[in-house]
C-alpha cells in the first residue's frame, strides 16, 4: 500500500496512551459481561451478540477515526459504539428498551445509533451497511467534506452480493471508504473456509482494483498502526479494504450449542486474548503494575455501574408514542 509514512502517536508512544488503550478494552469487556448478566436477569432481551475477544479491533481502529468521520456498523457493535464514545449509559438504556436509550428503545442491542457522533448504527442484515457506507462517502465527497466513512462488517458479509457491489462502486467512484472486515473466522456456525472459496479475504479487493491489507486483530498496537496507515491512504480519496484477524470467545448470540467448533480451538484463541496480550506487553515495559490494573478495573467498574443506573432510572416510552418517528414530521 502506497501510504505516506509519518510519525504518529500510537498505542505504545507513551505509558498513558498505552494505559488508555487498556482501559478502553476493559470497558468493553466489563460492559458486555454485565450485559450478559442482565440478559440472564431479564433486563435485556432479544439477541445479544457479544464482542468479547474482538476488543482490540475497535479500540485499535478508533484513534485514526476523527470525530467528523462516519462509522457504519453491525449488530455486534457494542464495542464499536463504546470506543467511538457513545455514552455507556445511553447504550445500556437502549438495551433495556428505555426512552433514554441511544435509539429511544426502538433498536436494542443490534441497532445502536448516535448520529451526533456520526455513528450510523448497527445493521442487522448481514452486509446491509456496506452500500450505506458508499452513499455516505459519496455525499461527503460531493459536498467537498474531507472525511472518511469507516464501514465495519464480519467475514460472513463477504459472501453477500452487497459486499462485492459496494467495493466495486467505491473503487469505481473513488470514494473515501475504509472497509474494515472483522474476520472472526465464523459466520454464526459456518467456518470461514467453509463459506469462502478464497479465505484470504484481503485478496478480494484486487478484483475491484482496490488496495487491501490485513492485520492481527488481537494486537491493539498492530491494529492502531495499520489503521493509521490505512486511514491516511483513504484520506487521499480512495477506498481500501482492511481485514483484521480476530476471534469471538462467546457464542454467536447469547446461547448456541457451539457444535461447529471445538473447545480446544476456543481455548487456544483465548491464550491470545487481546486484553491479556496487551497487559503482558505493558508489564514487560514496566508500565503496568497490579495496582495500576486494579485502578483501571475500578474506574471501569464505576462506569459500568453508572451505565446500569442510568438505564434503570430511564423512563419507558409511553405506548401512545408507538407511532412516532415512522416518518419525519414536517418542519414548520
Amino acid at each position, binding site marked *: 500500500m502506497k501510504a505516506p509514512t509519518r510519525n504518529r502517536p500510537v498505542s505504545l508512544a507513551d505509558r498513558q496512551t498505552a494505559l488508555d488503550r487498556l482501559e478502553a478494552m476493559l470497558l468493553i469487556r466489563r460492559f458486555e459481561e454485565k450485559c450478559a448478566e442482565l440478559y440472564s436477569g431479564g433486563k435485556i432481551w432479544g439477541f445479544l451478540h457479544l464482542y468479547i475477544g474482538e476488543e482490540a479491533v475497535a479500540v485499535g481502529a478508533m484513534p485514526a477515526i476523527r470525530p467528523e468521520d462516519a462509522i457504519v456498523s453491525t449488530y455486534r457493535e457494542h464495542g464499536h459504539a463504546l470506543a467511538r464514545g457513545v455514552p455507556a449509559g445511553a447504550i445500556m438504556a437502549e438495551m433495556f428498551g428505555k426512552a433514554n436509550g441511544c435509539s429511544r428503545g426502538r433498536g436494542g442491542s443490534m441497532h445502536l445509533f448516535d448520529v451526533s457522533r456520526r455513528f450510523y448504527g448497527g445493521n442487522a442484515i448481514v452486509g446491509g451497511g456496506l452500500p450505506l457506507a458508499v452513499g455516505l462517502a459519496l455525499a461527503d465527497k460531493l459536498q467537498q467534506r474531507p472525511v472518511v466513512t469507516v464501514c465495519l462488517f464480519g467475514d460472513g458479509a463477504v459472501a453477500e*452480493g*452487497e459486499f462485492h457491489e459496494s467495493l466495486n462502486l467505491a473503487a469505481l467512484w473513488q470514494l473515501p471508504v475504509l472497509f474494515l472486515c472483522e474476520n472472526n473466522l465464523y459466520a454464526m456456525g459456518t467456518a470461514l473456509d467453509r463459506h469462502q472459496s478464497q479465505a484470504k479475504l484481503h485478496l478480494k479487493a484486487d478484483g475491484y482494483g482496490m488496495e487491501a491489507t490485513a492485520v492481527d486483530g488481537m494486537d491493539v498496537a498492530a491494529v492502531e498502526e495499520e489503521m493509521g496507515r490505512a486511514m491516511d491512504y483513504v484520506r487521499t480519496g480512495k477506498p481500501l479494504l482492511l481485514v483484521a484477524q480476530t476471534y469471538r470467545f462467546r457464542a454467536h448470540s447469547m446461547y448456541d450449542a457451539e457444535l461447529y467448533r471445538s473447545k480446544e480451538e476456543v481455548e487456544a484463541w483465548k491464550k491470545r486474548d487481546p486484553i491479556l496480550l496487551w497487559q503482558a506487553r505493558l508489564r514487560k515495559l514496566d508500565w503496568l503494575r497490579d495496582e495500576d490494573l486494579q485502578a483501571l478495573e475500578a474506574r471501569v467498574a464505576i462506569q459500568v455501574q453508572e451505565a446500569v443506573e442510568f438505564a434503570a432510572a430511564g423512563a419507558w416510552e409511553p405506548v401512545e408514542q408507538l407511532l412516532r418517528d415512522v416518518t419525519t414530521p414536517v418542519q414548520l
Partner: protein
Amino acid sequence: MTKSTYREAIRAALHEALANNPRTILLGEDVGRYGGAFACSRGLLEEFGPERIRDTPLSESAFVGAGIGAALNGLRPIVEVMTVNFSLLALDQIVNNAATLRHMSGGQVSVPLVIRMATGAGRRLAAQHSHSWEVWYAHVPGLRVLAPATITDARYMLGAALRELDPVVIFEHAMLYPSEGELDKLPEDFNIDRAAVRRPGRDISLITYGGSLPKALAAAAELASAGIEAEVIDLRSLRPLDMPTVLASVARTHRAVIVDEGWRTCSLAAEISAGIMEGAFYDLDAPVARICSAEVPIPYAGHLEDAALPQPARIVAAVQEVLAHHE
C-alpha cells in the same frame, strides 16, 4: 397421538423427506454444523452427509437461485432461508425466476422447489428481524404459499409441498417453534388447499393464520366465557386462499374479524376482507374488522412490540365492537 413440539415436527418432516427421496437436498445458512438457526435440522448432516445437507455462505440470492436451478434439473431441493427478513435478498430469484420460468418458457420447465423460512415478531428483535412479509409472496402468481400453524401441519405440510410441481414457500412463525401439542397421524384427507375450522362457533368468524392462530384461539376461549361463540378459521394456505371455507363460515356467523400480523395496508387481511365483500356481502350483519400490526417498523422494547402486534385482548375488543354493531 403423540406429543411433539413444532420444531420437532418440522425436523421429522425434513427427515422423512430426505429419507424418502435421494434427490431431495437441504441447503441454507447453518443448516448443517449449526443444526439450523432454529434447530430444525439437528442431526441431519450426520445422517445424510454434506452432499445433501449443504451449509451455504451468506449469499441468499445465490443459494436460493441455485435451488431453483437444481429444481429445474432433476433435484427436489428444500431451501431454508433463515428468516423472511433475509429472503428479501433473494426476492429477485423467487419472484423473477422461480415464479415465472414455467410461464415465460411457454410451459417447458417446472420449478419443484420448496423454500422454508421463519417469519414474524414477538422475540424483541427489532425491525430488521421481526417483519411478516408473507403477503408479498402471496401476491405472486406462480407461487404457492403455506403457513403451518399447528403441530400436525408443521409435520405434514412439507411432504405435501414436495409433491407439488411448482415452487412452494412455507412460512414458519418463529414464536411457534417451541410450542408443544398433539401430533396426529397423517390425516387421510390431508391437503394443502383447504383452510381449517380450528374451533367451531356460531356468533362470529375469526379468520387468521400462522403465529396469530394461538392468539385467536385464546381470544375465542375468553369470548366463550362471556357466552360468545367465535369460529376460528386457520387459512393454512395463503396462496391460493381457500375463500369457500371462509365464505361458508361467514354465511353461518354473519360477522368476521380478520387477524393478521402483517401491516394493515395492502395486507392479506385486506385481500380476505375484499373476498368476503365480493362473496358474502349479503350475509354480513356488520362491516368486517381487521386486527393487524400497527403501521410501524416493529420496535425493540417489549411493551412497544407487544402494543404493535395483534393481541388476544385487542381481538376480544374488536369482536365485541363488531357484535355491538346494529344495521
